[in-house]
């Protein structure tokens, strides 16, 4: 068993990392925002997908399970699922429409995080700058900085996902 303490803002980078680990024979067992636990096994035995769940999370996961997808773990709106790599290439979304719907959900999720952190940065900085001499000041300053960092880091995957969606939409429109 191997543990890693790290975190990702871009779910695609996270998925890539998990799949690279799988190629090295380390298979994800648990994932939390700052913590990953792997089990040792055969090299490249599984292909993993990191999924943003739709509203009816349980229903969706049950459906995936009924098609032979293994639900490894989940938290909040995300699930980590896998399939043996000896089966066919494992993709959850196979056509333009469902890929675009999925990208839209991810964009909404990023936007939500973006706005929350943006507001948090503004509020914490205003407390930091306008209430002088209180000891909580420094905490507000720090939280403000962290939120700003998250806002900056969120910007790139947000833009990337948006561009991917647009490219798909253009290609799709061409065939209509």
């Amino acid at each position, binding site marked *: 068993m191997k543990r890693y303490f790290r975190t990702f803002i871009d779910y695609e980078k996270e998925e890539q990392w998990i799949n690279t680990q799988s190629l090295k024979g380390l298979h994800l067992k648990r994932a939390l925002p700052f913590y990953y636990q792997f089990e040792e096994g055969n090299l490249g035995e599984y292909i993993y997908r990191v*999924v943003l769940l739709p509203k009816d999370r349980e229903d969706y996961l049950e459906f995936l*399970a*009924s*098609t032979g997808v293994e639900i490894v773990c989940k938290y909040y709106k995300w699930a980590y699922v896998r399939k043996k790599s000896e089966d*066919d290439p494992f993709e*959850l*979304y*196979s056509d333009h429409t*469902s890929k675009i719907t*999925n990208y839209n959900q991810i964009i909404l999720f990023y936007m939500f995080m973006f706005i929350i952190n943006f507001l948090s940065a503004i509020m914490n900085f205003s407390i930091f700058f306008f209430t002088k001499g209180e000891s909580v000041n420094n905490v507000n300053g720090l939280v403000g900085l962290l939120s700003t960092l998250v806002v900056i880091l969120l910007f790139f995957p947000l833009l990337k996902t948006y561009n991917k969606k647009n490219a798909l939409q253009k290609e799709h429109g061409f065939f209509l």
Partner: protein
Amino acid sequence: MSQEHAPLTEGVYYMLLALYEPRHGYGIMQFTEEMSNGRVKLGAGTIYGAIKSLLKKKWINTYVEDGRKKEYIITDLGKEIVELEVARLKELYLNGQYMLNQGDL
């Protein structure tokens, strides 16, 4: 022929064909792959979304709910849609053949 319905996607077309007999999600996947000789492989997420929207349009119905594995079946409306689509595809196919063979079917 009326243009009341947009052309079906390959995925939806095969899903409707699959549901002339009651099938669950995995059954739909297998049917589609076999019928298309492995060319059309539907993702589980794609099928899930499509089932939801087909149920809403009443093109398919829930057949039995046997715990985890729900089965679905095509409705009369769904069959009508398939018939229209087959007629549309036939027109496309015949016209294509006609042009390829320089006016000789």
